[in-house]
């Protein structure tokens, strides 16, 4: 067992919660402090664009662990506490109020923040971003049936909000800059499936839309969005969902190696061996695709939060797992298993028409990723078979009467 006496965690989200859980579970008995600038105990973000935004999920159900967990396990939680500096020589972090915490090991679990649009009118009333409970509180109040919301960005957050708003009776327009929805994560076939689904539900989807400015009324409230082709969209509410940036500024200022994310090794260790990073803020070398990746997913925060804790205790990391991610829109459950980067062919399993199908991504004949839609069987099987250098037999793959594991 390690000789650590004081572990400090900066950030109080999914990765932080997982790290404190693992530390105590594995018998770490020393001081454990969690510093978070949000006023809430660590909570799940996925419902923020789904059930919680829809109003069908109570607030206390968002918490990853109830308050009693932290006191029972002697975790000193400071909420509303923003860390502003890391002093690596003194092994101390300091907060906005000037107070300091000593550490033997430090975990940066600071997450990411929405990328802001720097266009005219982006600060008008009625323009929203979505990351925190506070954001939902502001946005949720505005979601009155019949009002018009324009969503900038056709990624999964924008589309989940589109689905939720449509179900709440708003008029919804989605403006996407590229030529298709969710273009960074799924293949064109899935993009068009989702485009059709949203259109069928009455969402107005506009691709290749380059937003130029937001116009307001005389009260400083949003009224419309203008695109560079001259088109104008009337809006009572605007939601901007154009990706996220890692919260790595503390690490950059402290001189840790960063490159759009805090660089970590397989043990989640940064370039300073006493400092670890996990979750949305961390950039790691993927054993699957070779390059550096920064993943924004609950699964990744969970795995890295666990691994950082294990490494602090001198234990070996978990077996590298295949990353996965989910998105819920209407009654469609999309699960993405693996990283499809560099795929050279896709094979469809099942028919989109049945609203339950999968797409297999292959590179040099190996199954590197799979997207499943309402297909629990394939998704669980995929989590075991994807990224293991398995070479499926293509015509078997397309035959849905065969379980996935019998396609090799």
């Amino acid at each position: 067992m390690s000789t650590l006496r004081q572990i400090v965690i900066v950030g109080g989200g999914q990765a932080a919660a997982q790290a404190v859980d693992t530390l105590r579970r594995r018998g770490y008995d020393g001081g454990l402090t969690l510093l978070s600038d949000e006023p809430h105990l660590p909570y799940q973000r996925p419902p923020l664009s789904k059930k919680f935004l829809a109003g069908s999920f109570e607030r206390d159900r968002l918490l990853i662990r109830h308050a009693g967990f932290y006191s029972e396990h002697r975790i000193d939680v400071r909420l509303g506490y923003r860390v502003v500096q890391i002093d690596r020589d003194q092994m101390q972090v300091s907060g906005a109020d000037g107070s300091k915490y000593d550490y033997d090991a430090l975990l940066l679990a600071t997450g990411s923040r929405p990328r802001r649009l720097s266009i005219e009118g982006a600060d008008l009333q009625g323009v929203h971003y979505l990351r925190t409970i506070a954001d939902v509180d502001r946005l949720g109040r505005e979601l009155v049936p019949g009002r018009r919301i324009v969503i900038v960005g056709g990624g999964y957050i924008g589309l989940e909000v589109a689905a939720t708003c449509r179900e709440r009776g708003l008029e919804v327009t989605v403006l996407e800059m590229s030529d298709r929805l969710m273009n960074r994560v799924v293949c064109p076939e899935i993009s068009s499936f989702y485009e059709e689904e949203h259109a069928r539900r009455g969402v107005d989807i506009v691709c290749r839309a380059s937003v130029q400015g937001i116009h307001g009324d005389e009260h400083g409230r949003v009224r419309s969005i203008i695109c560079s082709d001259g088109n104008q969209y009337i809006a009572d509410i605007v939601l901007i969902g154009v990706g996220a940036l890692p919260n790595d500024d503390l690490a950059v200022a402290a001189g840790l190696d960063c490159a759009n994310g805090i660089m970590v090794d397989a043990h989640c260790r940064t370039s300073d061996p006493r400092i670890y990073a996990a979750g949305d803020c961390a950039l790691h070398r993927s054993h699957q695709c070779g390059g550096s990746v920064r993943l924004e997913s609950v699964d990744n925060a969970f795995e890295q939060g666990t691994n950082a804790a294990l490494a602090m205790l001198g234990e070996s990391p978990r077996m590298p797992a295949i990353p996965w991610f989910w998105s819920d829109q209407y009654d469609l459950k999309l699960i993405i298993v693996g990283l499809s980067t560099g795929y050279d062919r896709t094979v469809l399993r099942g028919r989109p028409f049945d609203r339950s199908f999968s797409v297999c991504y292959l590179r040099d004949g190996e199954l590197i990723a799979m997207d499943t839609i309402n297909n629990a069987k394939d998704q669980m099987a995929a989590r075991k078979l994807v990224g293991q250098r398995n070479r499926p037999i293509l015509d078997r793959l397309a035959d849905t009467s065969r379980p996935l594991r019998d396609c090799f």
Partner: protein
Amino acid sequence: MQGNEHRVDGLAGRKLMEALREFDFGVAAICGGMCSCATCHVYIDPEWLSRLQPAEPAERDLLAELRHARPNSRLSCQIDLTDALNDLALTIAPEE
């Protein structure tokens, strides 16, 4: 925690997974109850099994692919707690 037997009490109206999360080191429940991750997998005491609402197809499909699945496997996020289930006995399944 995993492998020990538990009895679940109170929290009617919530999901069984949420009650288990309240235990000291309860289920991981990574997906938060979306029937996606199977990290809330439990073995229900056979005496209790028939008193639960049967699993929906999505849950059954997921369970069917699990290495540690047994005839009394359930995903605890898919089970609604009611007063009739006070004292429900179960064991948390090992991680996949």
